[in-house]
């Protein structure tokens, strides 16, 4: 129950936030209060961890869907990231948006997101997981569109929503396949042997599609840089630490069940490697601090995917250390970027220089976070990267090792360069140049403590854990164990000695720094431009085309089907009936019809009369003869009823038919009505085809039913119980007024309502046309 409370607390707080933001005091304390709540929830998770609780509440029992929550190592790791980074970002967000009129709404969404994220990481039921997965997408949409007056923000929000929910749909299909294969939705009960028997590849690809969209794997990543249109706290939380990790989290969560196969390694390894390298180097084309960080987030997510693909003990350990390290430094850097923006009025690297003078605290925080970002020793980033190298070096197969090492190395080098770009270039004192405009503005707008305190906390935790990584051993062991599905005794060290990994680290750091020094040339170099064209502009263009295409398809469909014309609607509806009914009938085997009995001449006469009269009624225009023909149809039907044991029906039919004729003549006195132009050309062909099809489908289905044996149990039951239960001798009557009396009551009500309507309308009609008119009555002839 405690787990349910942890998740629910966030949602309750989300509901209260807008209310709290209505008062000035509430606005000031909203950030710190929300941050405290997040810390409390994190603490609660830590305290609960020892008991490893799980809870299962029935949700949709007939479908086997349960609200199942379970706290394990992986859940605890991500839960702590979500609440820990969340606490920092919430405090920061309060300071960042202190004068935003929509502060309450913003916090509502942010807290709801946190709760959804906690639900996701604790979920032990696939449907529960899916629901929270989608909730995080929804929260992301609302948060990106926070500045909804900006077209750019709306487009970015839409793109993020469409891409991530498309992935969510894949996840839904995957979980249905899993349920069909494994017979359970409980994640902890999934057995890899069982899943590999079933449609394993389909499940894997669908799960990977969900994770790749959510975790922005190339080429599905363009939504993430675009999402930088969101306010900076959102970028720091959702688009670096939490939501984008949901994708890799799902992969990690399912890796005991799905992982370890060649297909898994190939898919995740390839996607992760491409993304890791591309993200890091694409970042170097950007000059907006947030976009630089966004692309390196893409790279980090690629690296995490790659590590899951490599798998095994080393892969899992590296994943844990890297995920935590990245969450800490990247959220800190985003918050710094926002603070710089606040102070200097721009985030453009080219316009920023010498900020260390006016903003020493920010410079220090940025440097501390970037230390970890660059993967320099004594930081959690270093620990994670060393483990990543280890994992790559220990992967089986020379070719694989080579490819993985190159990927990790290239990604690390690019990230090191990006780290310098973010942390050195804007802050380095440049006494040789005149003070930039931005620097002067920054000196006049020193950031509030709420803007540099939270990132300082994140960066500091990253450094402390980098120096004393063994503090993480219990958590890392437990989390790595959840990923591999077997107990792992992780031991994280700040210093591994002179290993090959250290050598590779040194090489990548040197390459990174060298790249930074030559950044002005690298930025516009041909290889980077080509990389951008293939992996960045092409997917973005594909998205635009797909969106425009969908809209055009929708427009075409609406114009084609929603013509506003009754006949077209009818034709489409009936046409659908014909096609679907026809398809269903095609599967009926050859009909075994009852033997043809000799029909008496009377029956033939009635039947022929029926068809001929209907034909006559069909001939336009509607004139008096039409009405006569119509009544013949009705009377002929009455004759059929009369012949086949339904005298009541015959009676009612005759009565009703007579009333119809009277009504027709009364209402449409001036017959014949002027004939309308008959449909011509294609339209006429369509009408005839639909009509013939409808008739054929009806006849064929009737024949199919007649060929099947008939069960008259129900009719017999009524007949046998009419006297005893209903005290009536006319069985039909007992059904109507006793057995199914409510039906009849409903019917009576319908008739009453119809007659009231007729009476009201008729008054208007008779008044409107006091004399028989030859031509159409002019518009407004009512008065």
């Amino acid at each position: 129950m405690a787990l349910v409370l942890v998740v629910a607390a966030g949602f309750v707080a989300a509901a209260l936030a807008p209310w709290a933001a209505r008062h000035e005091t509430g606005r000031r304390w909203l950030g710190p209060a929300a941050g405290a709540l997040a810390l409390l929830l994190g603490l609660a998770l830590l305290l609960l961890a020892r008991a490893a609780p799980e809870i299962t509440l029935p949700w949709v029992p007939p479908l086997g869907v349960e609200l199942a929550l379970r706290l394990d190592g992986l859940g605890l790791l991500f839960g702590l990231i979500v609440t820990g980074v969340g606490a920092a970002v919430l405090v920061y967000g309060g300071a960042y948006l202190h004068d935003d009129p929509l502060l309450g709404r913003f916090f509502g969404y942010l807290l709801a997101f946190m709760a959804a994220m906690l639900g996701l990481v604790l979920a032990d039921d696939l449907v529960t997981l899916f629901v929270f997965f989608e909730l995080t997408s929804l929260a992301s949409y609302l948060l990106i569109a926070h500045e909804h007056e900006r077209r750019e923000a709306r487009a970015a929000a839409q793109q993020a929503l469409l891409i991530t929910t498309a992935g969510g749909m894949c996840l839904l299909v995957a979980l249905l396949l899993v349920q069909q294969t494994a017979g359970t939705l409980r994640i902890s009960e999934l057995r890899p042997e069982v899943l590999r028997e079933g449609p394993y590849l389909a499940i894997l690809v669908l799960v990977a599609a969900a994770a790749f969209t959510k975790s922005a794997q190339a080429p599905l990543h363009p939504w993430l840089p675009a999402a930088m249109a969101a306010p900076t706290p959102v970028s720091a939380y959702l688009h670096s630490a939490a939501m984008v990790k949901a994708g890799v989290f799902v992969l990690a969560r399912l890796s005991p069940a799905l992982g370890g196969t060649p297909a898994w390694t190939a898919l995740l390894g390839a996607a992760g490697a491409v993304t890791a390298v591309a993200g890091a180097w694409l970042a170097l084309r950007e000059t907006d601090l947030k976009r630089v960080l966004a692309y390196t987030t893409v790279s980090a997510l690629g690296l995490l995917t790659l590590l899951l693909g490599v798998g095994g003990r080393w892969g899992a350990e590296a994943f844990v250390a890297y995920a935590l390290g990245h969450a800490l430094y990247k959220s800190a850097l985003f918050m710094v970027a926002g603070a710089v923006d606040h102070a200097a009025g721009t985030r453009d690297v080219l316009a920023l220089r010498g900020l260390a003078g006016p903003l020493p605290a920010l410079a220090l925080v940025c440097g501390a976070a970037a230390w970890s970002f660059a993967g320099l020793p004594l930081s959690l980033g270093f620990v994670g990267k060393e483990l990543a190298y280890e994992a790559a070096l220990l992967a089986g197969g020379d070719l694989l090792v080579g490819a993985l090492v190159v990927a990790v190395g290239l990604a690390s080098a690019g990230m090191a360069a990006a780290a310098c770009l973010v942390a050195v270039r804007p802050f380095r004192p440049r006494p040789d140049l005149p003070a930039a405009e931005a620097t002067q503005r920054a000196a006049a707008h020193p950031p509030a403590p709420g803007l540099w305190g939270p990132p300082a906390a994140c960066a500091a935790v990253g450094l402390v854990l980098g120096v004393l990584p063994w503090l993480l051993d219990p958590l890392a062991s437990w989390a790595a164990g959840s990923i591999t599905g077997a107990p792992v005794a992780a031991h994280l060290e700040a210093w591994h000695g002179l290993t090959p990994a250290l050598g590779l680290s040194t090489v990548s750091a040197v390459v990174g720094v060298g790249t930074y020094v030559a950044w002005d040339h690298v930025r516009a170099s041909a290889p980077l431009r080509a990389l951008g064209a293939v992996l960045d502009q092409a997917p973005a263009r594909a998205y635009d085309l797909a969106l425009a295409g969908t809209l055009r398809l929708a427009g075409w469909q609406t114009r084609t089907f929603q013509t506003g014309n009754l006949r077209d609607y009818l034709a489409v509806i009936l046409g659908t009936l014909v096609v679907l009914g026809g398809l269903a009938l095609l599967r009926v085997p050859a009909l075994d019809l009852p033997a043809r009995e000799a029909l008496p001449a009377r029956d033939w006469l009635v039947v022929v009369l029926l068809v001929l009269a209907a034909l006559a009624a069909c001939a336009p225009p509607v004139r008096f003869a039409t009405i006569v023909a119509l009544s013949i149809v009705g009377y002929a039907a009455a004759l059929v009823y009369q012949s086949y044991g339904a005298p009541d029906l015959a009676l009612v039919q005759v009565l009703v038919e007579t009333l119809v004729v009277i009504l027709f003549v009364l209402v449409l006195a001036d017959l014949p009505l002027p004939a309308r132009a008959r449909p011509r050309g294609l339209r006429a062909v369509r009408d005839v085809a639909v009509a013939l099809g409808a008739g054929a489908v009806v006849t064929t289905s009737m024949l199919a039913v007649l060929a099947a044996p008939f069960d008259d149990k129900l009719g017999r039951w009524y007949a046998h119980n009419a006297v005893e239960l209903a005290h009536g001798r006319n069985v039909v009557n007992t059904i109507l007024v006793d057995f199914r009396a409510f039906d009849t009551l409903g019917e009576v009500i319908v008739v009453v309502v119809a007659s009231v309507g007729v009476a009201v309308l008729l008054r208007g009609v008779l008044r409107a046309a006091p004399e028989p008119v030859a031509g159409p009555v002019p518009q407004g002839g009512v008065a």
Partner: protein
Amino acid sequence: MEVVLAYVVGALVTLAVLLLLRRSLVSVVVGLLVLGNAVNLLIMTMGRLTRAAPPLVEAGAVLPEEPFANPLPQAFVLTAIVINFGLLAFSLVLTASARAIAGTVDPHELVGPEDTPPARVGGAA
């Protein structure tokens, strides 16, 4: 007879659909009437036909004399006939008021009422 009626009902449905697709509300009403008759015959036929044996119980008896016609489709059709009549009466009068007020029974010319509100029917008084 059942097989013959299957073809008859098919023919009636064809004609009714042709009427429904025509460009006059009066034709649509006529089509509705034909379609109603067709469907009633369909329901009767699907419950199988028994000649000249209404499901009645003789005075003094508890069970009807075998064989007897299936009473259930009859009950359905009885309801359907009456409902059909209600529907028909309403749509007929509706058509007539469209003609009286808008001067046309062509659904084509009746489209677009969102832009120009039609004269109120009951407001004639």
